[in-house]
């Protein structure tokens, strides 16, 4: 978000920012390669590998069979012999066919080997719904990945972070699950939340993994979001400002490691917490953040922490059913008002 100012602005979509980070790192480091379904000639269903196949060729930009278990497992083998693979799981909803290669293999090799065989790889995967793609193409599953040890998990909310987190992820000696939200991607066919398109420096920079961002400073209530819900929280903050409620918006950016300090500092300051998450409500991210506040900022809490999340039901197809279930600015604002006793 805090781009240098001594240059003309360059607004990019998240898709372009990801592709640029990949291209720049592939130029810099011959051990980086990209694999996945339709990430080659097509340039990625979500545009995040566009141009790579043309520039780097079929050996470094590999279109794979529909064999997620094999090519994610293959990425681990490549990483163990000195490559830095970036693999794409097209939709996070598909994790069920290949989770062993992710959570038992990529995530645990470093530990099982006592540090002999770290696994420097990135797993990019798309998340989120809201465009009518139904229950097997609209999930977020942030909690599912964050719950299991050995892999880092990042969730960019804008193009600047998307590039900086991708460069950090590729250079990280550990497996990093890079979860990008379709509504932020900047592909015309998916529509795009405006705030996700922002100024991206052309040069090399990293956004550290494990640091949350304060997307908007405030005094009265802490709104925590990740990915798409960061933008909903910012909408809510605008609304609340008109009513004299000064909300602080935190963009988690990383789930693993989780920047507990930034969240706690804010909650200790405001005494009020609302968590917004478009993943399923129970046993996930929203619960963990609320628990964190309860455990470690109990004395500072002035009101019951609250959450706005997707309910514990499969994601329905019909817009008449799906849209009302999604977190948005109004729901977050309402929860914040209640937390501030202004309901």
């Amino acid at each position, binding site marked *: 978000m805090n781009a240098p100012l001594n240059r003309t602005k360059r607004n990019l979509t998240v898709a372009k920012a990801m592709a640029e980070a990949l291209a720049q790192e592939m130029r810099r480091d011959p051990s980086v390669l990209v694999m996945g*379904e*339709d990430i*080659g*000639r*097509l340039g990625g*269903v979500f545009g995040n590998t566009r141009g790579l196949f043309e520039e780097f060729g079929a050996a470094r930009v590999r*279109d*794979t*069979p*529909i*064999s997620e*278990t*094999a090519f994610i497992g293959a990425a681990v083998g490549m990483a163990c012999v000195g490559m830095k693979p970036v693999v794409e799981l097209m939709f996070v*909803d*598909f994790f*069920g*066919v290949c989770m062993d290669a992710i959570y038992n293999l990529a995530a645990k090799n470093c530990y099982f080997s006592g540090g002999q065989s770290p696994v420097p790889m990135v797993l990019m995967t798309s998340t989120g719904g*809201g*465009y*009518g*793609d*139904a*229950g*097997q*193409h609209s999930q977020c599953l942030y909690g599912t990945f964050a719950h299991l040890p050995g892999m880092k998990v990042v969730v960019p909310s804008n193009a600047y972070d998307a590039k900086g987190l991708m460069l950090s992820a590729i250079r990280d000696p550990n497996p990093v699950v890079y979860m990008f939200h379709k509504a932020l991607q900047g592909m*015309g*066919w*998916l*529509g795009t939340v405006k705030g996700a398109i922002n100024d991206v420096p052309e040069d090399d920079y990293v956004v550290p993994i494990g640091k949350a961002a304060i997307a908007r400073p405030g005094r009265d209530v802490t709104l925590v979001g990740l990915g798409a819900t960061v933008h909903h929280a910012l909408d809510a903050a605008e609304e609340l400002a008109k009513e004299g409620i000064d909300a602080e918006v935190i963009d988690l950016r990383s789930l693993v490691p989780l920047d507990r300090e930034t969240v706690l500092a804010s909650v200790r300051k405001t005494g009020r917490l609302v968590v917004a998450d478009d993943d399923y409500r129970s046993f996930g991210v929203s619960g963990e953040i609320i628990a964190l506040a309860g455990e470690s900022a109990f004395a500072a809490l002035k009101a019951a922490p609250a959450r706005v999340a997707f*309910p*514990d*039901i*499969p994601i*329905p*197809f*019909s*817009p*008449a*059913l*799906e849209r*009302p*279930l999604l977190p948005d600015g109004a729901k977050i604002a309402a929860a914040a008002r209640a937390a501030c006793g202004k309901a």
Partner: protein
Amino acid sequence: MKPTADQLRWMYRTMLTSRRFEEAVAAAYFEGKQPAFNMANGPIPGEMHLSNGQEPCAVGVCAHLDAGDFVTATHRPHHVAIAKGVNLKAMAAEIFGKKTGLSGGRGGHMHLFDAKVNFSCAGIIGEGMGPAVGAAAAFRQRGERRVAVSFIGEGAANQGAFHEALNLAAVWQAPVLFVIEDNAWGISVAKKDSTAIADNALRAAAYGMPGHRLPGNDPVAVFDIAGEAVARARNGGGPTLIEIETYRLEGHFMGDAEGYRPEGEVAGLKAKDPIAALQARLLKDGVLGKEEDASIQSAARDAVAVAIAAARSAPYPEAREAYEQVFA
């Protein structure tokens, strides 16, 4: 096994119904998505995978099935659903996300379920294969003469579920057919770039089951081989693998720019449109007369028009209905 004249006419009519249905869906899909194509907009949001050109696979196999037989299809399900006898009105309404849809709008185009005819489909590659094996095993265990059929694309033949399902079906001698609709593409990836061998039927030998590859996208050839396989299965002969060469006349999903397709490929395939081919053949062989053809054509058009009109005018579900049917 040769189709009777009635069966030929049924296949022709069903292919036409499927084609007209998809033409109507395609038209509705683009509403609200022009000039700017945003999948979230219009009466039919989300991805839309059309099966235009692949109708022979559906009718040649389903001609041998009745409502009690169990079929799973893919993310590209319309032609198979129609051939299996899924309620056309309720199917259209589901695709439009309406309360009157098969699932009240919960599933949409990739999740069409009609329990009355034992039809379902899914959005995950290969996901329907295990269920087909299980349904078939249940039929066998209960001594019923029913069969199950799992339709998949050629790209799915490289997914682990394919291997596990075929082996399990063979071990259990389950009455199931695995039908590969080989349209040569998995989204933008050509079969030759994803599959170690050109003919997936050879993979049947890895499970000791018969395998057949059918060139030419010919519904009559499909009818012949599928008929024998279904009969074998009903008689306790176990599973069969069939790969059918077919044509994807549209993009992977609507909105696909198809930049990856070789110059002229689509035009070439459209010139071999299986519906036109069957029509010519039936007229030539005298199975179909001009008037009868016209009446079949209009019957198909009318059935679709009625279903689409009903879907358009049907009410949307109320928001609270989203919370229903999570559990039985």
